[in-house]
């Protein structure tokens, strides 16, 4: 296990700049998630660490050693892909054994046998060892792929959206298991995803990438609660954060320069015949009028889209209550829960 | 990977087995056309191997490819052949470009003299420049274009009567081209022995030399000349003379009116085929084939007669035949010369004739028994007495191919007039001679 440092990495493909002076540090035993939309530079970062891509500028350190010019084979990383991770010309056993058989590793046949067996047991695929990989289901394939990464206990696991090709239910299960395995093995994982739920639920630390630049690094709670920019704020949380002009809640006392307020939907309070906030809360709030424009019942909660002075605001409401489109209500929020952003979208 | 490996293994294996084949040392390779006389030569040469211990190998190339193949070989300096029996017209190129070994010294040393050989054959098959005492080949196979006819049909009384009714003279061997035409026309489409027959099979082939060899047979009979006898390479008025044009038109008339359907690209084999299968009453072909025809189960055994090229306004016959040369690029010239020495012996020449080869040796031809030894022997002598040959220039092939095209386009391709064809031929030939520096 090792720590990883990227220093001032620049990388361009033709005229597009994939990474712009990226600095990143991943500590030993950390589950680090790089979050960003397609094209943000997540995968490029991963490939630079693996050695599959060379940075135009900057250096990569693994365990404080400069590996920028080292071939992938000698970096001892493990890569798990979204798909195509398994070699279709080998069966499950051979796929698992493949990294161990590398000529630079010189591991005896019997040792390989034991190690494969161990990993197969851990991942509950021991009954599939002799199957051809093409006969496996999607979930089993991804287990084998993760197993092949685990088997040689590399410096670092690099995972490129490994769960995104699976269906929702399976994703939920593997998410949980992957986190458990990482904790038990104390593995260092750099995990790339565009799915904020995966990032929030698994990461020790999240790095939010935007157009080749790292916007913010922090624990899920830090990033959720104190996003440094409107970009980061809107990447996390479902339903999305409300970013509204300050004019909407005029009476607020705001820090100078604030142009946008960020209020999470769950922090919007509703005052109507259904809702009675406590008197202590009441004092800190300004109430405005709004009209329900649509109601989305997700079962466990209701998402109300409320139109306030021409702005659409989303709020989470109790599913027990009955709302109808066109209904008028008053809404507010707790001052301390609001995030203040300036003109450039930066947190004040 | 296994597939790749096995392919590689197979490749190696086949290469190894192949290289194993080439081993022997004392042998020579003789190249000739694939036809009946070649088989006779194989039979004849068994004696040579017996005498000298030198093994003989052969490469007989089918006629349509013969010139192509051999000239390719010579032009690329190939060592495949030691002895080559090549067409008379190749002598020029063989001598000028040094493909053939000049044989004068060898003849002198071994006491072989060209005086022992029939003069027209020496002139045609072995000298360059023509008629000079520079010998590049030993006359090996005398040949000329002649005709075979169905003697058995000609003898049928009902046909004789019908012919007489139509033409006013009796059906027999034609002595002029007019008569030849009458006979052809008579048989064209006639039912004989219950089957539909056609007049004649003549040369029409485009690819090598076929139609030229046929057309010149007619042209010579009309008195055709290639050039002004007083001014070499002056062709205007000779090549496209009225006689030449008339002969060409006559040939086309025969082609259009008297040949079997589809006879548009025929030379030796096709003519033989048509004749042997009973399609035609007559065929044009080389003497070389007559022994085979005479022995043929269907048309041989007296059913066929043979006659020399008929005359019209002049005497003439198209020369065929070949001389035997030693290839300059050969590594075994000594062995090859040994073979030529053996072949020139009178007793070998005599056996050569008896096996079906056409000897050019005077001891054979002047033998009193010669004329009666075969039914076609007299004709052969007659023909050889009046043969004429095509250009024997080093640029022979270009000249030949030009004539092939012009003549074939007119006769078979039905393009333009005879005069135009001959005019264009002069253009082509002039171009060639100019490029060669002769004009």
């Amino acid at each position: 296990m090792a720590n990883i440092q990227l220093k001032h990495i620049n990388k361009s493909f033709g005229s597009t700049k994939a990474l712009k002076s990226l600095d990143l540090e991943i500590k030993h035993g950390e589950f680090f998630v790089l979050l960003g939309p397609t094209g943000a530079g997540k995968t490029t970062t991963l490939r630079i660490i693996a050695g599959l891509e060379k940075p135009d500028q900057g250096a990569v350190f693994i365990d404080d050693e400069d590996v920028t010019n080292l071939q992938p084979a000698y970096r001892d990383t493990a890569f798990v892909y979204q798909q195509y991770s398994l070699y279709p010309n080998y069966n499950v056993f051979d796929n698992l054994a493949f990294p161990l058989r590398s000529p630079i590793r010189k591991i005896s046949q019997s040792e390989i046998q034991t190690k494969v067996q161990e990993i197969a047991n851990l991942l509950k695929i021991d009954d599939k060892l002799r199957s051809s990989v093409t006969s496996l289901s999607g979930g089993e394939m991804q287990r084998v792929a993760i197993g092949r990464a685990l088997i040689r206990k590399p410096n670092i696991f690099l995972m490129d959206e490994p769960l995104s090709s699976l269906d929702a239910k399976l994703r939920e299960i593997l998410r949980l298991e992957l986190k458990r395995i990482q904790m038990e093995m104390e593995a260092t994982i750099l995990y790339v995803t565009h799915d904020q739920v995966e990032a929030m639920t698994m990461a020790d630390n999240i790095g939010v990438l935007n157009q080749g630049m790292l916007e913010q690094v922090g624990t899920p709670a830090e990033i959720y609660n104190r996003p440094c920019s409107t970009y980061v704020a809107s990447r996390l949380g479902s339903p999305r954060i409300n970013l509204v002009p300050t004019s909407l809640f005029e009476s607020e006392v705001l820090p100078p320069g604030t142009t946008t307020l960020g209020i999470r939907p769950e922090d919007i309070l509703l005052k109507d015949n259904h809702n009675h906030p406590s008197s202590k809360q009441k004092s800190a709030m300004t109430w405005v009028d709004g009209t329900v424009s649509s109601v989305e019942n997700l079962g466990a909660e209701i998402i109300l889209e409320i139109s306030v002075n021409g702005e659409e605001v989303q709020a989470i409401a109790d599913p027990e209550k009955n709302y109808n489109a066109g209904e008028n209500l008053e809404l507010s929020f707790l001052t301390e829960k609001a995030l203040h952003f300036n003109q450039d979208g930066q947190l004040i | 990977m296994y597939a790749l490996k096995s392919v590689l293994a197979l490749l190696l294996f086949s290469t190894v087995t192949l290289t194993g084949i080439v081993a022997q040392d004392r042998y020579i390779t003789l190249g000739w056309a694939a036809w009946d006389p070649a088989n006779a030569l194989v039979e004849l040469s068994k004696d040579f191997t017996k005498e000298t211990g030198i093994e003989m190998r052969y490469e007989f190339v089918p006629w349509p490819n013969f010139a192509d193949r051999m000239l390719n070989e010579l032009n690329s300096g190939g060592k495949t052949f030691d002895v080559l029996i090549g067409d008379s017209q190749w002598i020029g190129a063989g001598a000028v470009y040094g493909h053939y070994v000049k044989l004068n010294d060898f003849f002198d040393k071994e006491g072989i003299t060209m005086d022992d050989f029939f003069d027209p054959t020496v002139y045609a098959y072995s000298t360059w420049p023509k008629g000079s005492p520079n010998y590049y080949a030993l006359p090996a196979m005398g040949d000329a274009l002649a005709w075979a006819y169905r003697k058995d049909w000609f003898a049928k009384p009902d046909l004789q009567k019908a012919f007489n009714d139509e033409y006013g003279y009796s059906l027999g061997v034609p002595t002029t081209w007019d008569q030849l035409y009458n006979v052809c026309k008579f048989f064209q489409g006639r039912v004989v022995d219950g089957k539909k027959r056609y007049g004649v099979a003549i040369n029409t082939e485009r690819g090598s030399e076929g139609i030229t060899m046929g057309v010149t047979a007619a042209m010579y009979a009309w008195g055709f000349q290639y050039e002004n006898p007083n001014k070499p390479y002056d062709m205007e008025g000779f090549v496209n003379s009225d006689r030449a044009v008339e002969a060409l038109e006559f040939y086309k008339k025969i082609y259009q009116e008297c040949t079997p359907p589809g006879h548009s690209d025929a030379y030796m084999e096709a003519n033989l085929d048509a004749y042997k299968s009973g399609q035609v009453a007559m065929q044009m072909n080389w003497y070389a084939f007559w022994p085979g025809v005479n022995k043929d189960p269907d048309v041989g055994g007296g059913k066929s007669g043979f006659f020399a090229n008929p005359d019209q306004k002049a005497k003439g016959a198209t020369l065929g035949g070949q001389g035997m040369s030693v290839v300059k690029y050969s590594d075994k010239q000594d062995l090859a010369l040994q073979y030529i020495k053996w072949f020139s012996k009178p007793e070998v020449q005599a056996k050569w004739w008896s096996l079906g080869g056409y000897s050019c040796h005077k001891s054979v031809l002047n033998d009193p028994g010669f004329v009666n030894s075969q039914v076609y022997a007299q004709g052969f002598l007659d023909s050889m007495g009046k043969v004429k040959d095509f250009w024997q220039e080093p640029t022979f092939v270009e000249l030949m191919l030009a004539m092939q095209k012009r003549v074939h386009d007119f006769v078979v391709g039905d393009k333009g007039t005879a005069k135009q064809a001959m005019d264009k031929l002069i253009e082509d030939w002039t171009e060639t001679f100019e490029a060669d520096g002769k004009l």
Partner: protein
Amino acid sequence: MSEQTIKQTSPLEPSSFSRKSAAIIIIIYCIISLIPIVWMVMTSFKSANDAVSYPPLVYFDPSLEGWVNLFTQRSRQSQEYLDSLPPPETWYEELVRSRQMVIAGPSRFLGRFTNSLIIGFGSTFLSVFLGSLAAYAFSRFRIPLKDDLLFFILSTRMFPPIAVAVPIFLMYRKLGLSDTHLGMIILYTMVNLSLAVWLLKGFMDEIPREYEEAAMVDGYTRFQAFYKIVLPQAMTGIAATAIFCMIFAWNEYAFAVLLTFSEAQTAPPFIPTIIGEGGLDWPAIASGTVMFLVPVMIFTVVLRKHLLRGITFGAVRK
């Protein structure tokens, strides 16, 4: 509208009537287009006389004459000579004797056939070997002027053989390569290489890079990854390419007729020159043709799934 009138499950599928009529037309076309091939096989079992009989014979007494003629050289002999020979030992000798001939030796056909095999396999191996290397590089690496290089490679295939043959003939004459197996192997490799590169590049493009990258991360070099991961996966493609190269080399005529004469001559220029007793020996030619074409037909049937890519340089895939 009643239920019976519609039998197909989807209204867009062709009705069974239209399927049947399509099938009938196709079958008729198929029969017509197969007549030459069937006729060829039949002719190979005819006697020389039956082969040229009029009207053409559909029912005939099968004879192996054509096949015997294909493999032997014969010479016609007089009856007396034949009588003087010891009785024939084999069935084919007997057959030849019955035509008043004796076997003078084996024909050249087998040699030409072997030449076809050697040159075919040799050039196929070379072009697939070099082609897969080049195809991998073109598929994976950034190469300057890649598109131009690829077009250049492709264009070499399109050149008319006759046009290229002139300088090649002269070059080979200088190098002593004319009429040699090696010369023909190099030549056919050159022609096939473009097909091989294009086809194999197509196959390799379809193998996701992730596979070899995973292998490289797993501790293998790029070359090992190519060898262990890419090649095995491209195996069907390689096999298909190999067979296409083989078929090309097998069928090629123009170069063969211009650059080979005897030593290295392949079958296509030879078969038309099979001579019988005066004229073309059709049953022998038919036999040679059958023997020459059957391997290709078998390949075609086996390979039908890959056919399309091969014949169009991989432009169209199924």
